[in-house]
């Protein structure tokens, strides 16, 4: 009984202070797989990018390591600045699914954010790599669910 109480007391702060975050990976058929993780520090976005680059067993991820260069919040928008060197060589499918994984994860975990803007190497660009248009903002309404019908 005492031991159980001790374990409970040790775990209590972890339960109280840790926040749960949901990450979106992909299975072998590229269907979304959500995984919940806990994190208790402030820099949650860096943590989420790092975790997305380390898919859990049985999943894949198109988010490369060291992708996030910087980020800042402007009212209800989040601006994320990505590093182009780690995006070299990704194909059409990887570029789209990278965007879906990132935005789905961001909008799921930061409910107060309405839109996301993407810059590359600190500058506004037309395309993320070769295909995805990053000139305009990405709205929460589209990525608050998986943006591919039949794969939700």
């Amino acid at each position: 009984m005492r031991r159980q109480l001790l374990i409970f007391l040790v775990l209590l702060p972890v339960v109280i202070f840790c926040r749960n975050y949901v990450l979106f990976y992909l299975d072998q058929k590229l269907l979304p797989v959500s995984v919940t993780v806990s994190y208790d520090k402030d820099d949650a976005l860096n943590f989420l990018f790092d975790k997305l680059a380390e898919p859990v067993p049985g999943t894949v991820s198109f988010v490369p390591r060291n992708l996030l260069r910087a980020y800042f919040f402007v009212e209800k928008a989040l601006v994320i600045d990505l590093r182009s060197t780690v995006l070299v060589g990704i194909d059409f499918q990887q570029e789209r699914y990278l965007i879906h994984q990132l935005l789905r994860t961001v909008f799921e975990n930061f409910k107060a954010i309405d839109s996301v803007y993407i810059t590359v190497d600190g500058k506004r660009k037309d395309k993320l790599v070769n295909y995805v248009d990053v000139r305009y903002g990405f709205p929460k309404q589209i990525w608050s669910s998986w943006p591919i019908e039949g794969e939700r």
Partner: protein
Amino acid sequence: MKRLLLFLLIIVSVKSFSFDLYVGKKLIYSSADLENIMSWSSFVSFMENYARMMGMDNLSTGEIGDFHYLVWRGHTVGYAMNSNVFVVDGVTTRSKAVPVDNILSVFQLPFLRRESEIVLADMIINKIIKTDDIIDIVYDGANELVFVQKQNQIEVVSNSFVAVNGYIYKPGELVLVIQTDKKIDQKIEMPGLTRVVLIKETFLNDKVVTLKFGEVSQIPEDGILIFYSDGDDRIIIRPYSPDFEGSDWPVYAQNKRIAQQIATRFGLKLELCPLYSLPVGRIAMVLLLSDDTKIQKIEEYLKELLR
């Protein structure tokens, strides 16, 4: 017989001298008091709940000795219990309780008076903005409007007690008629805003242009653009963006509807992704097909759809 008569008299008198306060169709407060009066505490509690229900600014309350007051929307209402003095924006009257209808008027809250009942609106429309393709209705409270599509017009009907410019429309009453040859494509709900996107049923451009994805240097100016390539049977269309503040919604809605019809007919997945090759503000899609021969069938189907 005498007993029955007495009973009926009691019922009638209670009914006659009761006071009921409704918000829309919901009874919020009822008492056997004469006239439309409430105790100060009931009144404050009601006002707090109403402001919360309607999503309006919070009111502030306080007390100085025996004097209790409430400040809301630039007006101050106060009540000194022992002396039965009632103060509205500095003007003093003697009253044992809160005269509800007077105070609602001070706060400019629209209401209906029906015998022993006061009915407050559960939707207060603040602004109606109509552009070619969008009707925006900005309101406080709950959305209690029903949009009825008729030939060459859209009727907006009240589903509860809806206030517009101080007038309250009862359930089933016609609030607004919008003359248009367009149809309702979708209704988008946001807190305090209903946005109705209109669409013209006949497509302005029925020309279909098919192009090989990734091999096009110049895009034709007219026609619905269909890019195609090898792939895993999916259609990709451009979603809308917050940068266009809703002006790209009609094209998005039309684009999505066409893409959904093609997807259903040919067993394709529909993906929303802003590809750079898909021009903004134009019906355009990328088809990734496992079978190249499908593109001709899709083109024929699309032409049939647009006819």
